[in-house]
């Protein structure tokens, strides 16, 4: 083995410095982390379709008083289904109680999660720019409404490198009902190289496409193929020591072989004890799928994956996600039941393993829902005021931050825009969102465009 190659391998996969070391050009990102990181990984629990804030974490008694009456906050042009959405208040069908030392208000639909109320940092003043799923998802994932920009997981891996040699740094776990609208664009690398794209994992069996040997090819046969490839590639590279991309090709096959050997282990849950499987709800039909993804998320961050994004909700229709246009109760009963116990188990499991301190858990959708009524019993999209919560390292636990108006229609106090949330998440990972840039079309781009302020009040 040549020394330059060894040096290359040693340097591969550990962040900014590694790419610079190989003197292979990468767009200028600047050195990172910019300051000590509070967490190493992010688990983003994406409630696709838009969960209703006034039915989960932001109770609004005023809606009962105004039931059936036109609320002053209402404007017709705010709604997505302008012809179906009524101006009248639609009180929450759910009751709320205070939980924990913090007295956090949580709806009755979260009997498990409410036991962890003191771990949550609930942001009630979220707002975003689009009341349409496609652009809103794109914004929550990439900061921009239009497609073509890298998603947050891409930025994190670009900025920090990966901490694992055997797994991708950005994994996406989909609902069994399929991907949300936008499909792959949601975890797109945008204008960054394809290497920064999110990798959807299958929940069982071989997790990544092309990870298994081709049909009928044995492991020894595959090893022989890899050896032969290496010999030919070394011959070609040796003739041209100036072309470091050729050495990288050799290394890429060695990493590929390592992934083939090691990656399937992560989806093999046989080593997990029964009580863990039970805690995540793997034995009940309702919770089994999301529970398995939550357990996988824990296993992935444990192995150094930088960002895991889990989707609750697929794209077979509005009633297959949190998009409760028609029957709010039926929809949110189902979606909460599928996710409540698994999320509670994830928080507890992370805590017990000492991982919660180094992990940031993010919960929320692309927007919230209107406090007014759509049709007979539904709610329309609402990007003007909604709730998300954070838990984990660096975040003040057991607080609620920001407010919507008395109806939960619009964020009014301590508002947090999606850009601010992104800035805050990057901050917790040791990145200054204004310094992390990628040069594209002769301009430096950021996750936060030209906006975003770190929400210092929620940082511990």
């Amino acid at each position, binding site marked *: 083995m040549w020394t330059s190659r060894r040096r290359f391998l040693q340097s591969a996969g550990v962040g900014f410095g590694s790419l610079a070391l190989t003197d292979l050009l990468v767009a200028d990102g600047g050195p990172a982390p910019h300051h000590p990181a509070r967490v190493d990984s992010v688990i983003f629990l994406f409630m696709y379709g838009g969960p209703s804030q006034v039915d989960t974490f932001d109770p609004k008694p005023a809606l009962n008083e105004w039931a059936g009456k036109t609320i002053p906050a209402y404007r017709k042009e705010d709604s997505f289904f302008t012809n179906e959405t009524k101006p009248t208040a639609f009180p929450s069908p759910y009751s709320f109680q205070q939980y924990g030392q913090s007295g956090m208000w949580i709806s009755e639909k979260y009997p498990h999660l409410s036991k962890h109320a003191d771990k949550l940092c609930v942001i009630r003043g979220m707002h975003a720019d689009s009341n349409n799923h496609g652009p809103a998802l794109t914004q929550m994932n990439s900061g921009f*409404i239009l497609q*073509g920009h890298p998603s947050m997981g891409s930025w994190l891996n670009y900025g920090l490198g*990966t901490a694992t040699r055997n797994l991708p740094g950005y994994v996406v776990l989909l609902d069994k009902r399929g991907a949300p609208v936008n499909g792959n664009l949601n975890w797109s690398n945008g204008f960054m190289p394809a290497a920064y794209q999110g990798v*959807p994992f299958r929940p069982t069996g071989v997790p*990544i496409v092309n990870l298994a040997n*081709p049909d009928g090819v044995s492991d020894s046969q595959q090893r022989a193929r890899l050896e032969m490839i290496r010999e030919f590639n070394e011959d070609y590279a040796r003739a041209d020591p100036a072309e470091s991309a050729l050495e990288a*090709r050799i290394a890429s096959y060695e990493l*590929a072989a390592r992934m083939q050997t090691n990656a399937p282990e992560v989806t093999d849950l046989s080593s997990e004890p029964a009580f863990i499987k039970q805690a995540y709800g793997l034995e009940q039909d309702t919770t089994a799928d999301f529970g398995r993804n939550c357990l996988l998320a824990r296993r992935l961050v444990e192995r150094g994956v930088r960002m895991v994004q889990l989707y609750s909700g697929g794209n077979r229709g509005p009633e297959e996600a949190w998009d409760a246009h028609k029957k709010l109760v039926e929809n949110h009963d189902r979606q909460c039941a599928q996710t409540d116990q698994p999320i509670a188990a994830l928080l507890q499991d992370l805590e017990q393993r000492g991982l919660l301190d180094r992990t940031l858990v993010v919960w929320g959708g692309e927007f919230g829902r209107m406090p007014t009524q759509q049709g007979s019993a539904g709610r329309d999209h609402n990007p003007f005021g909604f709730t998300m919560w954070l838990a984990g390292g660096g975040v003040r636990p057991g607080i609620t931050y920001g407010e919507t108006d008395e109806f939960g229609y619009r964020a009014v106090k301590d508002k947090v825009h999606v850009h601010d949330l992104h800035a805050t998440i990057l901050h917790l990972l040791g990145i200054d969102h204004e310094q992390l840039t990628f040069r594209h079309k002769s301009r430096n781009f950021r996750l936060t465009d030209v906006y975003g302020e770190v929400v210092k009040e929620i940082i511990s």
Partner: protein
Amino acid sequence: MNLLPLVMRATVALLPTSSADEGGHWAFQPLRAESGSSIDRLVTRDLSTHRLSTAPRAAPDRLLRRVHLLLTGLPPSPAELSTFRADSSPERYAAVVDDLLARPGFGERWARHWLDLARYADTSGLHQDTHRPHAWRYRDYVIASFNQDKPYGRFIREQIAGDLLAPRDANSWIATGFCRTGPSNEANIGAAELKAYRLDQLDGILSTVSSVFLGQTIGCARCHDHKTDPFTAGDYYSLLSVFNNTADAFVSLEGEAPGAPKLFSPKARKAPKIPTGSGIRALGTLPESQRKVTRILERGDVNSPGEAVVAGVPVVLRGIPAKFSRTEPSARLALADWIASTENPLTWRVMANRVWQHLFGRGLVGTPSNLGVSGSPPTHPALLDHLAIVLRDSDGRIKPLIREICLSHAFQQDSAYRKSAHASDPANHLYWRFPKHRLEAEVIRDSILSSSGKLNRKMGGSGIKPRIPSEIITQSMRNQWPRVKTETATHWRRSVYIYLKRQLPMPLMELLDAPDSSESCALRFESTTPTQALALLNDAFVNEQAGHAVERARREKPDAPAQRLMELTWARAPSAAELAKARAFLEKPEITLVDLGVVLFNSSPFVYVD
């Protein structure tokens, strides 16, 4: 699906020079001819200043493979190789170049470069990823244009204003697909966002037109006067007004002449149902009663309209003579004429640089869609002007320029490493050797099919949908990709014909850095990742085609199939040492010729052009 990339190669961007006071920027100056200049004289001149020289001519196999791959995207056949080995004289080589330029494969290869710029796809992307039943007509138009060697000026005018230029010519309407092929979301846009959405759509057209044809990033002046480029918000909205009163138009191609365009109102929230019959989605002009005045938007905010503007070219470029009509729709034609004018130096420099880039793997200007103040300066300014003049003065035809470059010694020289030359010019800025580079996704797939003998040469028509692993099909639920169990000849067409679904590009293509068609792409990445390796190693397509290549090798050389396999894949004669290695490999347990085929498809000599 990727790990951290091991390498990302991009053209080394030199630091921008900001010496340009307005109007003084190099790219805005008229083209300057140097008497008696030629590519080799200009390349050698810079090399000799640094006491360097070009390499000797590449060996016949290497040269033939290079020129085949770069002009047609396909490797030479063993028969073509042996003919050239027997006579590789300059005359014979020139005849090869002429032959390749005349092949239909030339247009298929060079159209793909243009489609990257146009951000071509067969679906709308965004929310619904709606099928666009007629998009392929634009792709076929581009292929035909390159094959016909359409004058570049004409090509420009058709794509910006074909509807006005020749309304009786179907191709002219199809050409405006350039302005219509970006992502769109008409089917699903909120009422409150309609205005901003429409501005984004116009911005997409304007940014693409200005960066692709002029190499200028005028799009950046949308929100405010630009910090580095000399463009103002006034310039931006003046250009925007050229497109502000256009609309989506459906033009039926059922009859002998194109039907009257059916215009879709930009105010409609739901996209019009575009008929699936024979017709196209094109650019049309709104009737006079619906036209509106364009205003500067403060900070790009649709709710803060300011001063009204009239159509015009940016102030800093007004030295380039324009006969600008300020009324619409003729302003659009005037803009097209101004861009296509022989007096517009930007147009010719930008395109000449792209041609050089696609032959050498990188441009003389490293930022090919930005020849502005924030872009890189050219490494060889006189050479760039020489090429631009050749292009302009051959009636804007591209083939004569490609021919001249391919016949230069700079292009024909060897690509081998030389220690001393490398020490003085490590990045090979001066072209002391031919720069080897990794082949594009499409060329790799097409070369696999060409080696296996299974390439189906059928041209044109609606896009093909080869097999993608069924488990990833659900990653895009709208307009779903079909589940293909077994691929057949219908799938084995050239990659330029693959249906481009924005939400779910073919993994093999995407992993090998095919652009995502969200935005115009002037320079692809050359990334190297383990997931790329996994795809080339384990994908069913590669393994099946290796099997077909083996059958072919056995048929063609029954007594030496391994050697034939190497000739077919590497498009050169293997050395004795390489043959010995292959033989030793084949003696291992379980190993067959198919394994060797897969190995060869994964080898650097196969995925690189040198």
